[in-house]
């Protein structure tokens, strides 16, 4: 199975990279941009075929290492 983890700074925590990209888009003439946020995507190949087990395991990975929950939120998608 494949787990796709997206990690982003929490709402309300200023995202300096997103802000810089937003400014760049503005100056390139893309005037309709309301907000840009930049995060990271982590793709994990899992040996298990049990989706529930995979979900639980990846959640633990996120809480332990992949995200710093003081400043970041994460989403998990299992395929």
């Amino acid at each position, binding site marked *: 199975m494949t787990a796709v983890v997206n990690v982003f700074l929490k709402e309300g925590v200023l995202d*300096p990279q997103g802000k810089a990209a937003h400014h760049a888009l503005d100056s390139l003439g893309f005037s309709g941009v309301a907000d840009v946020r930049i995060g990271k995507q982590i793709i994990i190949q899992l040996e298990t075929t049990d989706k529930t087990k995979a979900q639980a395991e990846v959640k633990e990975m996120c809480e332990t290492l992949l995200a710093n929950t*003081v400043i970041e939120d994460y989403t998990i998608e299992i395929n």
Partner: protein
Amino acid sequence: MKVAVLRFPGTNCDFDTQYAFEKLGHTTQLVWHENTELPADIDLVVVPGGFSYGDYLRSGSIARFAPVMKAVTSYANNGGKVLGICNGFQILTEAGLLPGALKRNNNLHFISKHQNLCVINNDNAFLNQCTKGEVLNIPIAHADGNYYIDDTGLKNLEDNGQVLLRYSDTNGEPVVVNGSVTSIAGVCNENKNVFGLMPHPERALEAILGSEDGVRMLKGFDA
């Protein structure tokens, strides 16, 4: 005083830190990250600056799981004094030994320069040789020094006197350097035995090199 200086793959301020504490008359011992125990009879653990594990994923996020960090955590939980400088500060926040987190600098640049710092609280084992409101000139060199803590956390820090230093001008007024919440440059834990700061006091020991204000900071541990 006997000082343990940790070394991870990618640490690069280990020798500077040793030099600093030895210059102040202390003995030091480098401790490899794979060690599961700290040397006996130490008075202080320093987590020095650098780019542990290449700063991959997040600065400090992998180093915090190094075997030696278990020993550091139990040392700190038993009241032992721990100082994290720059990458060391990031490691200590990732390890949960210090509150908050350090994000990418607001301007996305690696900032390397001398910076004035205002001493906010000195009633602790670290800054007791400094005066409250005093302005110190200490080098900074970091890309991820943008300190973040939520409003509740910030109030707790302020109520408990845990804010150690703020980036300031020469008059001690806060200035924006990297986007840190209320310009915070250093904090301690609630029990005031774990300290972290982004600036490098170990690089400010000789006037000929720009500043000797670091001496007064590091002397505090021996007072």
